[in-house]
């Protein structure tokens, strides 16, 4: 049976990010404001999904944010984190886990979506449409997340 597909708003996206950071890495963050003057992101990742609709999540993080998450996962001090290796790995894992939460939120328990593999990218595509976005701020810095789905494109 085909499930109804629910759009995702920025607040819901932020709650998913906050939940996964707390559960996976014991990193506590707060939802930030889109217009606040946070540090500029330096590392980027994206993950695509397909199924009843196709969509993409894009993530943009600062080195400080990723050092905090990676240090918590590895059990080392933030200054001992290798950002190229561990920071990128942490960002991809956040993208992967968030992707799972998003596709579950789209249709509920009888999910028909499949996730692609998370990819570190050089920089976000500025022309890419974003249907919902959020920023969460941890002690180390901010993480920005954008969601784009063809469902939302059709509704717009």
């Amino acid at each position, binding site marked *: 049976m085909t499930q109804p597909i629910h759009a995702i708003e920025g607040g819901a996206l932020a709650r998913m990010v906050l939940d996964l950071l707390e559960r996976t890495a014991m990193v506590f963050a707060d939802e930030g404001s889109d217009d606040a003057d946070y540090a500029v992101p330096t590392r980027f990742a994206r993950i695509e999904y397909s199924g009843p609709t196709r969509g993409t999540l894009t993530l943009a993080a600062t080195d400080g944010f990723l050092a905090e998450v990676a240090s918590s996962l*590895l059990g080392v001090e933030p200054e001992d984190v290798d950002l190229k*290796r561990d920071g990128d790995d942490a960002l991809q*894992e956040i993208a*992967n*886990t968030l992707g799972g939460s998003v596709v579950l939120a789209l249709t509920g328990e*009888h999910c*028909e979506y*499949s*996730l692609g*593999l998370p990819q570190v990218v050089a920089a976000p595509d500025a022309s890419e449409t974003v249907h919902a976005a959020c920023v969460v701020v941890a002690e180390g810095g901010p993480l920005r997340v954008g969601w784009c789905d063809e469902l939302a494109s059709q509704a717009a």
Partner: protein
Amino acid sequence: MSCNILIVDDSRILRSAIRKVVRCAGIDEDRIYEAGDGRQALAVLEHEWIDMILLDINMPVMDGEQFAGEVRKNPDLADVALVVVSTEANEGRLQRMRALGAVDSLRKPFQPEDLLRLIVKLMGAKQ
């Protein structure tokens, strides 16, 4: 506990986090093995006796479903407890994993305590 555990996940940092939880379950460091994909995991199984596999699904090279299919073909591995630890939400794929012998699953994001309880429960049942 005298059990050998294999962690299969393409994220090195997550394997490290899971390893910490496995150690908290009382598994000695030298009884914990890691693999970054299904093919690497099969190579570990050729040389080591493994009691439990904590298996991600969404991986490059050989994903968790392909790996579980290979494990199921080998009668020598019939007693290995296969546990899915993944973001996977696709119900059809999870059903296929159960059909391939997965005894339990834990969806990411999970709290370390959730994984700890699962390991202790399954290892307790095996011993």
